[in-house]
């Protein structure tokens, strides 16, 4: 498979994502500057990495969402192909309206950086098909605006449609929800997918839990294995 990694001024997790993809043996990665109009080769997967695109000016992700390359990302998503935004990448995808919701400042108004645990709510998606349903995965987090927000009616709608695929959880009890969200995310939402399930936004960083012996934990490997399996077999269902 082939991946494309979108890079904005201020992206800082692009190397982490590229290293994770290389370590997983996922095939070639094109690093594509946001000013390009299109990808050099049609990718199977588009990754929108974390960081502080445009210094988080105006709103996190707002300026990046208007970049020329985002037109190609939108077309790729509309064709049903895979797109995953991590952290600032998630913020960018919501600002581009490829995903619903907004990421507000953390409830404690602090930048939070550390371990987080998420419960895998579904394992029939391109991003989770190698996890067990209900499995707890440990992914690092590092963000200031991670409180997932949707107005009440719309929040119920995405819950009803089972579009929440990662939820912050207590690793001991397996209980998930807002009280386990370090950022105060509504309903403890850590990651959601688009209506068709091919676009993912996730605040924690699976790419930082991929390389062995770096910062501890390799639960992210299943994330990449899921994507590889999905891309190679045209679905795990």
């Amino acid at each position, binding site marked *: 498979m082939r991946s494309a990694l979108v890079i904005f001024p201020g992206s800082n997790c692009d190397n982490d994502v590229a290293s994770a993809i290389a370590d997983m043996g996922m095939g070639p990665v094109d690093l594509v500057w946001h000013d390009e109009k299109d990808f050099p080769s049609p990718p199977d997967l588009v990754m929108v990495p974390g960081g502080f695109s445009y210094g988080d000016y*105006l709103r996190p992700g707002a300026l990046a969402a208007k970049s020329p390359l985002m037109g190609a990302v939108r077309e790729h998503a509309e064709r049903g192909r895979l797109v995953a935004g991590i952290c600032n990448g998630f913020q960018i995808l919501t600002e581009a309206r490829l995903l619903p919701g907004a990421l507000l400042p953390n409830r404690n108004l602090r930048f939070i950086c550390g371990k987080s645990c998420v419960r895998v709510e579904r394992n029939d998606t391109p991003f989770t098909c190698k996890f067990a349903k209900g499995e707890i995965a440990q992914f690092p987090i590092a963000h200031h605006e991670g*409180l997932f927000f949707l107005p009440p009616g719309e929040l119920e709608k995405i819950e009803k449609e089972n579009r929440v695929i990662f939820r912050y959880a207590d690793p001991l009890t397996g209980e998930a929800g807002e009280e386990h969200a370090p950022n105060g995310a509504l309903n403890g939402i850590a990651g959601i997918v688009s209506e068709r399930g091919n676009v993912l936004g996730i605040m924690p960083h699976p790419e930082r839990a991929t390389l062995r012996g770096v910062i501890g934990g390799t639960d992210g490997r299943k994330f990449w294995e899921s994507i590889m399996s999905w891309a190679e077999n045209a679905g795990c269902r």
Partner: protein
Amino acid sequence: MNVYRADITILPKDGVLDIQGKAVEKTLKSHGYEASDDVRVGKFIRLNVAAGGEDEARRLVKAMAEDLLVNDLIEAYSYSLEPLK
């Protein structure tokens, strides 16, 4: 062409958690300003816009706000317009 100055005020929508506003309010109250209430923290953007007339200037400001400056899921805005000499 005339030039207008637009002053755009952006605030968190009703019902959106305004954690900064809450923190500021708490601090004001703890400093004796019990009379303060419903504090919100938002943004202020000033820009100049060239337009044939005031109607066109208003259309342009509205378009800029809705396209980029404001995320209508979480923010509401208002603006004022003033012709520049």
